[in-house]
């Protein structure tokens, strides 16, 4: 077994998170810095082959020194952009709301000579490349000359998988997330199409990360089979870089551990990264997690819900979804469910809104249609904007039917005993609500 030493290749960014509720924005080094933190937390030697604007060079050097004396090679400069990303929705309950400042003006100039020098370190066992904005072809040609295993997190680039060919050999792992535009657009969100395109032709293995629904790992040598690893969702502080941490832990732990165990450790450590922005806390948590026995880590129950299984989970939106009401919280919930590939059902939108002078026949027809829709759904998500009788009655109906009921209470209105005690969850946190949807939907799938 070789001692892992990982070279990270990609941009360093500045992540600016706006946590809201009057809390102060937080500045962190992002891009490959997230994976570097994971390597530091595992005491794994790290090489940062980074691309960034000059003003960040000092910060990167300080970061590397503070994180296990990581070796630093600046392999590219950035002009025209500060490499600052603002994050409007840090928990990724729904779309993250990333804004890459001056993205269109960014010009990355790769320093191939320095990259070549970085690649000459024969003790590097693995390269983990994060493409995006820089000359990927030239980078892969240099990395491909080494004998190290090469992994690529292809969430942003390349769009065309033929670009993987520049490596000159197969990647050890191609890594993708269900939230990436490449997955959603190029492969139309179809996992089989992704596997067909990438596995074997370009990669020995494909790792598909599915947010709160866990991950799946496909091997070219075992077509049609997947190792499914649960996520361990919980209330999080942020989601930024969590996937990168997953990557880094996987790359390290696959040395000496089988794929199933390696992926299980990766999922658990990534969950810890999402819970804190204090590096020392993360390091302690990662170290303790890596002490789990293989039996413990592979048995630890979490949430597994593949992307393509989610549309069949129809979620009844119980809410005063009327055109004269401020429906923003309802729209947010619906957007989050769609982002995660669930199927929200909006009775008022689908069946119609009752007019002021509706006839008894019209009222009965609407009532029947709404009840039928509840029967068609697997879960209820109630949005409590005010004490709307229809919403409260629907919650009671769903509880009585044994249907999972999650209540989003954005204005902290839930005080009634039955309302607070009977649903599976009442929360004013959209993150907690979406996490609960994953949990109960996954249970429905396995029931």
């Amino acid at each position: 077994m070789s001692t892992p030493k990982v070279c990270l290749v990609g941009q360093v960014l500045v992540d600016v998170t706006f946590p809201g509720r009057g809390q102060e924005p937080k500045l962190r080094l992002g891009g490959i810095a997230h994976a570097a933190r994971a390597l530091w937390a595992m005491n794994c030697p790290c090489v940062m082959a980074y691309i960034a604007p000059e003003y960040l060079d000092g910060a990167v050097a300080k970061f590397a020194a503070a994180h296990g004396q990581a070796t630093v090679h600046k392999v590219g400069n950035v002009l025209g952009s500060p490499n600052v990303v603002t994050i409007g929705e840090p928990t990724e309950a729904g779309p993250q709301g990333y804004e890459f400042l001056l993205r269109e003006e960014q010009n990355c100039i790769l320093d191939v000579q320095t990259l070549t020098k970085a690649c000459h370190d024969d003790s590097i066992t693995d390269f983990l490349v994060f493409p995006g904005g820089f000359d990927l072809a030239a980078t892969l040609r240099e990395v491909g000359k080494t004998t190290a295993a090469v992994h690529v997190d292809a969430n942003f680039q390349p769009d065309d998988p033929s670009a993987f060919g520049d490596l000159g050999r197969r990647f050890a792992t191609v890594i993708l997330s269900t939230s990436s535009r490449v997955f959603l657009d190029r492969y139309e969100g179809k996992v089989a199409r992704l596997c067909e395109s990438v596995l074997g032709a370009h990669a020995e293995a494909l790792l598909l990360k599915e947010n709160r629904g866990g991950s799946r790992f496909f091997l070219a040598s075992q077509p049609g089979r997947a190792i499914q690893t649960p996520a361990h969702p919980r209330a999080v502080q942020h989601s930024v870089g969590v996937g990168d941490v997953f990557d880094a832990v996987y790359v390290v732990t696959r040395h000496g551990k089988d794929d199933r165990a390696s992926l299980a450790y990766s999922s658990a450590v990534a969950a810890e990264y999402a819970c804190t922005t204090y590096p020392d806390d993360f390091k302690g948590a990662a170290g303790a997690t890596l002490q789990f026995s293989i039996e413990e880590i592979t048995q630890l129950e979490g949430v597994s819900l593949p992307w393509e299984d989610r549309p069949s989970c129809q979620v009844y939106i119980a809410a005063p979804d009327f055109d004269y009401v401020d429906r923003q919280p309802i729209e947010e919930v619906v957007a989050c469910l769609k982002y995660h590939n669930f199927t929200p059902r909006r009775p008022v939108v689908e069946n119609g809104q009752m007019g002021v002078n509706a006839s008894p026949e019209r009222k009965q027809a609407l009532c029947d249609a709404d009840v039928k829709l509840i029967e068609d759904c697997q879960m209820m998500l109630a949005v409590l904007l005010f004490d709307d009788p229809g919403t409260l009655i629907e919650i009671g109906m769903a509880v009585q039917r044994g249907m999972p009921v999650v209540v989003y209470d954005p204005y902290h209105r839930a005080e009634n005993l039955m309302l607070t005690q009977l649903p599976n969850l009442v929360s004013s946190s959209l993150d907690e609500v979406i996490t609960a949807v994953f949990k109960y939907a996954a249970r429905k799938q396995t029931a």
Partner: protein
Amino acid sequence: MGTQGTNKFKDYPGTPRGGASGAKAGGPSSEDPGDVPLCERRLTGVPLEEVGRCDYFRAHSTIPAVGTPVVVRKKLVGGRIGVETTGGELIGFLPTDYNYLLRCMKQGYSYAGQVTSIAAKPIPVVRVDLESSK
């Protein structure tokens, strides 16, 4: 014109915690920015799962009374974190949201508390409060 915040990187190793003190009740929370270490937070009203299938209910055909002392079992039970009486009878499982307690226990923390609310029907429900110690 003045500016505030965002004037330096704040996440190097050794960065001190923020100023808030005291744990927030109510289980895992996204509202606590980390001023209290996750492992040390007080957990309140945690609904146990699978109560009807666990040892205590099967042995007694009922659920433990409010006030019954409980502890978190350090060894997984079928991949879940169990909560048991001080006599070792399994009452139920923590929701998987609390899986982090397993690594907290690896870091030397223990969790104990008591049953705070119960309901026998339509399905047996037991809620517990838990405090950490080290």
